[in-house]
């Protein structure tokens, strides 16, 4: 016991967390996942969009926190590209282009033609001001696509310029409140519905917006990614990581129990 005291509670906790994360990673069980209403709403909305609808994607991925958003982002991209939608994607983070290149390896674009069915626009700095400007005029913000082709030469962009030309804006992998930018600059002034594939930290903050109808639906980090993978029927990193979520969450509950057991014992 004195050895444990000498080691200190922190190091014991760190070791337990390491084991709780490492063991399920190596030996996956594959526990089932209950799909939340928010993920279901987002999935239903995308699934029911009429063929040929224009969808904007604000790719806000930030490298540091991307692992939390990766499962949902990948599942979202697979779903969006599976449906016959016209997709216009731009980046609000400098890390976005590199991360998107990695994700698109897992997305089957099928017979979709770049420039006709989907377009990738580049990264422009400017945070909420840029989001506002894209809502009023995409051409005002982007002169060319990500590969340098002038926007006037892209057939998809001929009839698309402002927020009202889109049926929805999907914010992907945002870590700094980009969903709120989209709500303030796209939904409130232009009434374009907002969907969010977001990290778990941002999820509780979006619940009031979802209740009010400003956000059509959102996913909750890795768990939301697993839920969305279940909905689209494509197993991916989300479902592989749910075991880790379970063990680590239960470990936290156990630690809290131990901490409070000491208090109760002292009071008794």
């Amino acid at each position, binding site marked *: 016991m004195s050895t444990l005291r000498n080691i200190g509670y922190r190091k014991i906790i760190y070791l337990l967390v390491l084991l709780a994360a490492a063991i399920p990673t190596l030996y996956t069980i594959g526990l089932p996942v209950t799909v939340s209403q928010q993920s279901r709403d987002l999935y239903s909305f995308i699934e029911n969009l009429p063929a040929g609808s224009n969808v904007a994607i604000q790719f806000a991925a930030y490298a*540091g926190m991307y*692992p939390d958003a990766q499962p949902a982002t990948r599942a979202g991209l697979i779903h969006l590209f599976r449906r016959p939608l016209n997709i216009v994607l731009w980046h609000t983070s400098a890390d976005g282009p590199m991360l998107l290149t990695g994700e698109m390896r897992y997305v089957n674009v099928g017979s979709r033609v770049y420039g006709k069915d989907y377009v990738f626009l580049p990264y*422009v700095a400017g945070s909420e001001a840029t989001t506002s400007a894209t809502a009023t005029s995409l051409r005002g913000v982007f002169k060319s696509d990500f590969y340098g082709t002038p926007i006037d030469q892209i057939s998809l962009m001929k009839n698309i310029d402002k927020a009202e030309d889109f049926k929805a804006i999907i914010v992907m992998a945002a870590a700094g409140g980009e969903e709120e930018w989209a709500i303030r600059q796209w939904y409130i002034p232009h009434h374009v519905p907002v969907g969010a594939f977001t990290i778990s930290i941002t999820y509780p903050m979006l*619940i009031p917006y979802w209740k009010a109808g400003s956000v059509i639906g959102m996913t909750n980090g890795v768990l939301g990614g697993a839920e969305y993978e279940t909905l689209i029927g494509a197993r991916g990193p989300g479902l592989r990581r749910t075991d880790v979520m379970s063990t680590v969450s239960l470990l936290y509950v156990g630690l809290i129990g131990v901490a409070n057991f000491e208090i109760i014992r002292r009071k008794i």
Partner: protein
Amino acid sequence: MMAAILKGKQLPIVIIWIAALIIFCNYFFGGSALGSAFRTLTVDWAVLIVNMALILGSVTLLQRSITLARSKNSTKVDRFMRAWTAFLVIFVLILGVTLGIQSGPYSWMYNNILLPSWQTVYSIIIFFMATAAYRAYKANNRYAAVLLAGGLLVLLRNAPVTAVVWGGFQTIGSWVLDVVNMSGTRAIMIGATIGAISLLVKILLGRERILGE
């Protein structure tokens, strides 16, 4: 006279008033002239300012590294690390600008050095969250007990395995998030937005610190 105008507070206040009026009038009244002015403001000027801030940050960091490296109090190791930092920044900048960010070497560096480093540091949260939960979630009084109960319910909701044990964990945890958390979030959002309006008024009146004393 030019120097006096540039150093004074009047010019920034005038610019802020013009920008604020353009943004407000464009939002509430619309119109092509206002829309065009708004786009110029948000696209051209805002993007320019953000990019200048990025450049300022990089230059400041380099400057600081060089100053510290040349400082008499710094050790050899300090000097080496500062020089190494400066070299890396310049090297990556040249690589990105000349070869492009989609090029092989830049992509390799990004995917195999930068990305894993960032993600590793972010992953440390899992350990610190455990120690924070052990230390902070203690029912010392009524309010702490309520915090503890709410936290536990949400934790159990987020663990997929609990849905297999009992579906009630999901329902109760979702209720805590969708009702209790939502009302608190709304209250804080309203307060914060009103705070932002207050800051706007103070800036427009020219009495806020960012405009200088």
